[in-house]
């Protein structure tokens, strides 16, 4: 029971990070129907930007307050990652919109290779680790010599994720921007006829996706304390699995899928073997695609002639 509760806490934390990345996949797929293969690497780049900002804030500016430092890191990482993703969309995807189906996917795979190798060249191939900080934990219960603890870091991850999801939810459902976005998802041509700037809406979608990935990247860096140039691929695929599991195109689905994947992964590691935890994630992806292609909350795909 203690192990289960502990894994539940860990799983929800990991799942929040996956959920944030998954929203990026699901939004981009919803609006232009492409699997943004480079999104996992955008997440990795954001973690590096957060790393640089964190070092800048703590060692150069000498800000000791954890909350202030985290806030600055979050905002800077979100800004710069948004710029990166905006530029990627502009350079690699926009010229291919309306082209044949595989072209954007191949371009995105190229972008993914480019980003991870760019970071490898620019920042070196070694794993970067930050000194441990903010390590206090709250012991919730103990039994059989095993303490169930929730760390302050995990609480921060939950609060930040929940707060940003709320803001994001408000933007998508209540603002003109969100309405434009949903209109473009349904019918781009019609939306354009009604005076919506489709290009701008797609750009904004990429910016929002990147901002949420940057939150995930910052949380990842803070929670694990390490990041390397190769950290984009596997979290990216898992977040994509989360998006598919929840129903691609559905925003609550992405969060739900993220939490499920996080829980499955931690439970699998705790009760079966850590060696095969990635096999579990990939198998879930394949099984969902084959037996439940519309996902848990998604709409079924209508086949049109």
């Amino acid at each position, binding site marked *: 029971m203690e192990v289960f509760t502990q894994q539940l806490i860990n799983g929800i934390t990991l799942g929040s990070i996956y959920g944030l990345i998954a929203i990026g996949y699901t939004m981009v797929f919803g609006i232009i129907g*492409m*699997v943004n293969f480079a999104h996992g690497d955008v997440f990795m780049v954001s973690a*590096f*930007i957060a*790393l*640089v*900002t964190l*070092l*800048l804030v703590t*060692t*150069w500016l000498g800000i000791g307050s954890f909350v202030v430092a985290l806030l600055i890191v979050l905002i800077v990482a979100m800004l*710069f990652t948004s*710029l*990166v993703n905006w*530029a990627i969309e502009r*350079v*690699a995807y926009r*010229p*291919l919109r309306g*082209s*044949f*189906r*595989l*072209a954007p*996917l*191949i*371009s995105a*795979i*190229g*972008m*993914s*290779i*480019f980003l991870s*190798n*760019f*970071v*490898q*060249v*620019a*920042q*070196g191939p*070694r794993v*970067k680790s*930050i*000194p441990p900080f903010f390590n206090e934990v709250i012991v919730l219960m103990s039994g059989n010599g095993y303490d169930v603890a929730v760390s302050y870091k995990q609480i921060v991850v939950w609060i930040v994720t929940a707060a940003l999801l709320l803001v994001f939810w408000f933007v998508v459902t209540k603002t003109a921007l969100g309405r434009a976005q949903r209109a473009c998802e349904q019918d781009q041509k019609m939306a354009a006829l009604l005076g919506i700037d489709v290009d701008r809406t797609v750009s904004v979608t990429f910016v929002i996706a990147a901002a949420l990935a940057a939150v995930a990247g910052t949380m990842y860096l803070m929670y694990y304390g390490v990041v390397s140039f190769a950290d984009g691929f596997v979290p990216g*695929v898992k977040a*994509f699995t989360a998006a*598919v599991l929840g129903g691609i195109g559905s925003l609550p689905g992405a969060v739900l899928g993220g939490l499920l994947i996080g829980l499955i992964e931690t439970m699998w590691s705790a009760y079966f073997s850590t*060696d*095969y935890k*990635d*096999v579990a994630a*990939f*198998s879930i*992806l*394949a099984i969902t*695609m*084959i037996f439940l*292609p519309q996902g848990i909350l998604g709409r079924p795909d209508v*086949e049109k002639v």
Partner: protein
Amino acid sequence: MAPEASGLASRVVGALRQAAITGLIAFGLLLPLIGFNTVQNIRNELVLETRWPLLAALVAIIAGGRFLHALLIAPWLARRALRPRPEHAPRVRFARWLVPFVLGFAIVYPPLALSITGVQGAVKWIDNFGVQILIYVMLGWGLNIVVGLAGLLDLGYVAFYAVGAYSYALLANSFGLSFWILLPVAGCLAAFWGILLGFPVLRLRGDYLAIVTLAFGEIIRLILINWVPVTNGYAGVSGIPRPTFFGIPFNASDEGFAARFGLEFSPIYRTIFLYYLILALALVTAAMTVRLRQLPIGRAWEALREDEIACRSLGINTTNTKLTAFAMGAMFAGFAGSFFAARQGFISPESFTFMESAVIVAIVVLGGMGSLIGVAIAAVIMIGGTEIMRELDFLKAIFGNDFDPNQYRMLLFGFAMVLIMVWRPRGLIATREPSTLLHAHHGPLLRREPQSNGTQPSLVRERQG
């Protein structure tokens, strides 16, 4: 004179403005990761270092490039777009002599390399360039059946390559069977896996299929890593027997190839033999593809690629059609895999990462899906281009001794993928015309039939095989 000068001035100003905007964006993009570097100091702590000169240089290069593009290249492109396009006839003639020329060059390449660089240099040129490129040409042609002909995007193709390589390595090491027996066995096993993995994904289309095949590819790689008793995990399989010249080994013994034929022993003979072996295997793949395209199954593949629903309405069994495409593609990957294992003598899961699949898919799509010569050209550009990066030691003289061109290989590879896609979304050679057309005329693959007087032209005109 005056309006012209002011026109030039306004163009320069416009280009300058664009260059400034681009420079600003580039500055924002590069500031965090180029402007700052995270390094470990003596106490193993991460500290920041600044690289302002490098940042300034990169931003200047990008802004300068944008300035030249806006001032010179963009107007030139706009003028060229206005000019009427020439007919495609010259390109067809070009393609006609291109194929025999490339084939001839591929055949005379080893003696040519030998005579130019001598025995020492030739091993490197034939092995690193010739054999390496030909492996990817063969993989590209194999995947071309799945992606180019049947239109099924397979992002886990490297899994079948791995099945072929491990089949040969494990069977040869455990049972001592020879390369020539295991080559077809590896192909069959890979084809079997193709059917096994193809079966559950048949209902999926497009991107979904791509992602599931990616997942399968990763699962196979993770099993290779974790199933240590059989595959030896990360350590890989070593001591794999090398292929023999129809039973004659390439070694220094009296029974060896060199001794039998009265030659002085040299590793070059094996390299040349391996080169012609992979060339033959690749050509078999190409020949099979060309012939299959004219068989009913090949036509069904192309029909499937163009429109699956129409295909089903016409009574084509899409399940079997897709499965044969998967199996056929996987079989060639199996051949290539067993060749790879035999050439390396050592294999490990590191050789079969997702990156390899991405590279092969990139070659097929960049070359122009369905075009054999396009795929070959793309393989030469992408693999040969990145291999040649290993040789650019003179760059050290420019950028200093720390400069290692090798680490920029994949960076440029990814960049080239994006660039070629944006430049030619349908690939370098974009002829996606089906081998068989309704009311066909002028198709480059079709031979025009003499029309007999008074009869209706046949409804479906077919290429005479």
